[in-house]
């Protein structure tokens, strides 16, 4: 063993902690620089010279934009902090998927370079596009958190779609029909209603799974169209007679205030930040979170240790529903400011990719939501600018899932190797070895 080996082995934890802190600080500094550059680029419509900076600062809501971008940068730092070298795997996977997407585009597009340029730079080319990105990432963060909760318990749920619809409906009904209240009361009331709707809709598949052992994949999938139909049924009843489309009256009460002109970025960001922290707290710092993590890690051990596994399954699904319901609230009160058909636009499946890439770590979710939203916003720009279908984005999404989980193969093998999971022989054998060793 060399001297260096010894020193790294003997590094006391305190030194390691201060080193990690140093890296963290460096990351934060980089993030701040990045956010300033990003803000100037977007606000000034591209950085050309020093004048761009003053132009950007003069732009309306520059401070708020800068604030949002700081959060974007911090999300990235947090992600690296949470996943460590796993970051590299994410970058490689997404890179490979984009490459495959590019190859596909070579086949179907006349000008693939233009298309990819639109996809990759488009979202930052105008303030409103930048806004779409950030707005969408906020919704996606909430859905990603929802999926994270169920994945942590080794369950599956594709029910976010329905939970979002009903959450949005509940919040909008509160906004529409509860007599005007101060925002500080009205918004929380609407949020509460949306969360409750998500909780209940998430509880159904949870109960079916826990007590009847009914496959939650099928039940959550079937509950989506039912929720969508309930949603459209109510919408039919409350829409103004004059409306040609199925759309509610514009909401006027309980709206989340918009904070950047020309975008739909709202104070909903505070809800999102709170949701990330709360989800992290639930998973890492509450007895329920311990139960969820433990049934996910080994459900037999959980039962042996005295955890009520059925109750935990129901609660994991329900709390996941709360996060999805919150997504609905955000969409209704923050983005659309009314109820429309197809409000969520397939967010549930996107949430799976986000949770997968974030490795089910709540604090890693925002960065992955931003990453994926970037593609989601780039898609339509690519479609308009280069006549390439925005659906290419979802093709890339499916490739990411395939690559990332097959890529899990390496992890899988490593896990297998360290996990002594003997048939009978090894235990038998270990037993024998002691006997043999005891012999002269």
């Amino acid at each position, binding site marked *: 063993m060399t001297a260096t080996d010894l020193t790294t082995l003997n590094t006391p*934890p305190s030194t390691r902690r201060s080193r990690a802190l140093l890296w963290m600080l460096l990351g934060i500094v980089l993030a701040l620089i990045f956010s300033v550059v990003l803000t100037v680029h977007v606000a000034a419509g591209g950085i050309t010279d020093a004048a761009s900076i003053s132009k950007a600062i003069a732009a309306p809501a520059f401070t708020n934009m800068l604030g949002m971008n700081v959060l974007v940068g911090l999300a990235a730092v947090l992600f690296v902090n949470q996943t460590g070298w796993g970051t590299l795997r994410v970058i490689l996977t997404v890179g490979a998927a984009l490459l495959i997407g590019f190859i596909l585009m070579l086949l179907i597009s006349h000008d693939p370079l233009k298309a990819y340029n639109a996809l990759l730079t488009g979202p930052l080319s105008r303030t409103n596009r930048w806004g779409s990105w950030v707005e969408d990432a906020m919704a996606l963060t909430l859905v990603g958190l929802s999926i994270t909760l169920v994945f942590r318990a080794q369950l599956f749920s594709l029910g976010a779609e329905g939970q979002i619809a009903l959450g949005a409906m509940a919040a909008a009904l509160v906004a529409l029909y509860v007599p005007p209240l101060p925002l500080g009361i009205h918004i929380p009331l609407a949020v509460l209603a949306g969360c409750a709707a998500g909780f209940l809709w998430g509880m159904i598949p949870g109960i079916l799974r826990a007590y009847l052992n009914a496959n939650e994949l099928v039940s959550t999938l079937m509950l989506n169209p039912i929720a969508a139909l309930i949603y459209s049924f109510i919408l039919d009843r409350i829409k103004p007679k004059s409306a040609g489309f199925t759309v509610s009256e514009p909401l006027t009460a309980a709206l989340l205030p918009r904070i950047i002109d020309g975008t739909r970025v709202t104070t909903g960001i505070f809800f999102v930040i709170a949701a990330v922290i709360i989800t992290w*707290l639930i998973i*890492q*710092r*509450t*007895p329920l*979170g*311990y139960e969820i*993590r*433990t049934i996910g*890690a*080994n459900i*037999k*051990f*959980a*039962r*042996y*240790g*005295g*955890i*009520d596994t059925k109750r935990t399954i129901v609660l994991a699904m329900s709390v996941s529903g709360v996060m999805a319901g919150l997504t609905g609230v955000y969409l209704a009160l923050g983005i659309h400011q009314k109820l429309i058909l197809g409000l969520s636009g397939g967010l549930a499946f996107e949430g799976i990719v986000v949770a997968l890439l974030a490795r089910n770590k709540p604090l890693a979710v925002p960065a992955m939501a931003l990453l994926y939203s970037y593609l989601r916003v780039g898609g339509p720009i690519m479609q308009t600018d280069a006549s390439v279908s925005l659906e290419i984005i979802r093709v890339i999404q499916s490739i990411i899932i395939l690559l990332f989980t097959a890529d899990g193969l390496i992890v899988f093998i490593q*896990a297998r190797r*360290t*996990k*002594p*999971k003997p048939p*009978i*022989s*090894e*235990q*038998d*054998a*270990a*037993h*024998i*070895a*002691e*006997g*043999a*060793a*005891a*012999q002269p």
Partner: protein
Amino acid sequence: MNTNKQKRVIIEAKAVTKIYPNGVLANNGVNLVVTQGEIHALVGENGAGKSTLMKILYGLERPTHGQVFLRGEPVQIANPQVAIRLGIGMVHQNFMLVPSFTVAENVVLNTEPTRGITVDTAKAIAQTQALADQYGLQVLPEAQVDSVPVGMRQRVEILKALYRGADIFILDEPTAVLTPGETRDLFAAIRNLVNQGKTVIFITHKLREVTEISDRVTVMRDAQVIGTVNTNESDERMLARMMVGREVFMVVNKPPVKRGKAVLQVRDLTYVAESGKVALDNVSFNVYEGEVLGIAGVEGNGQTELVEVLTGLRAAAHGTATLDGKPVPSNDPRAAREVGIAHIPEDRLNNGAAISSSISDNLIVDRYYKAPYSQHGFLQLEQATQNAQAMIEQFDIVTSNAENPLQSLSGGNMQKVIVAREFTAQPRLLIAAQPTRGVDIGAIEFIHQQLIDKRTEGLAILLVSADLQEVLKLSDRLLVMYNGHIAAIFPDPTAIAEEDLGLYMLGAKQQSADDMEALQ
């Protein structure tokens, strides 16, 4: 039985050694000679190396050193397909059958007779029937396997091997799952096979079966062959001595027992497995404060079920168990823990731990919801970490950090984590099942000392172990379980002749109910 002495050797293992990748020595220079047309019994305790040897003969494992000879020729048995081609058939303990298929379908699977593109069912049935008739293996070729009794399923397995042309049959504890009547039928069938020139290797724990059916018997212990004898020249006492060995029992530094009041009282406890097998059969005993009650026995004689009923993992069919006079909660592990039962489970990787979770998480599974680990609705991580650090120190767990995943530890240290958790649960009764299985000597010594210390402090301990040395060393009293019931009670384990113990464990002896009542 065969009297012809000029049998030629059909299969032979010469100096076979098997070292598993994890360094475990399972067979140590093993020699086995089986002659054509004999019934060769292979006996030995759990983990003596019988299974490994048979797996080598059937191509499920490759020997590290040594050579297998078939009819005098060296052979490389790379996988079971090769074994089948060489005429070696194996009847596994857990049957390799497709439950929804008929008997005939199972027999011909993957070598189906066909007519055009379809399976010729009539022919399959006829072939099965013919084979069954020839060897006296009575089966219903058209019955679905999951609807026929276990004994018939076993005959189906034998027919499968016959259909594929087997000459040598390895039967792995074939009577473990059979009723006495079915066992008789099986023995008749085995004699029939041998009369028609087949050879049978018969693995068992039951001495009576050895003397009843075999021509010769090989005894294994501690990865080695102790000897091969002609059955008619041996007796049960001799075989029991060979199996159990004559180790001098370790002198333990153990203060004299100070028995207090009865903590656990078990009366007529009965458990019926999902398969319908009566796994636990009217078991009654007490465990007292300040004593270690040991339960000895070959594995699979009801010990697992006993422990799982007592710890709330299963519900008994009838009978009672009370702890300090209060009934032990049924089917509710948390409630069982809360009345004061701690449990070191026999299968530590499947039940006792979550290997991907951190050490500190593994250490609080029974207490995370209580103060000080949870307060005001939140987990108090510092408390969990402190708890973990205290236990790491107290139980000498080798790790750099309490937040490391459990899977980063060695087997012995993993077991110490479980032991630490259960010991510090402040139980009234500690149930320790196979507490030192698969752990290194150092950890064994440590865990043994902990058990003795706790007992001396007044804890009631129920120790279940397949390791005879362990139960004899630690127990203040000893029960022997056989086939779901208590075969014997020994008030003083140091006074037991090992030979006697062997006879009770292997079902050759049984104390009378009155004797046992007197010894409670």
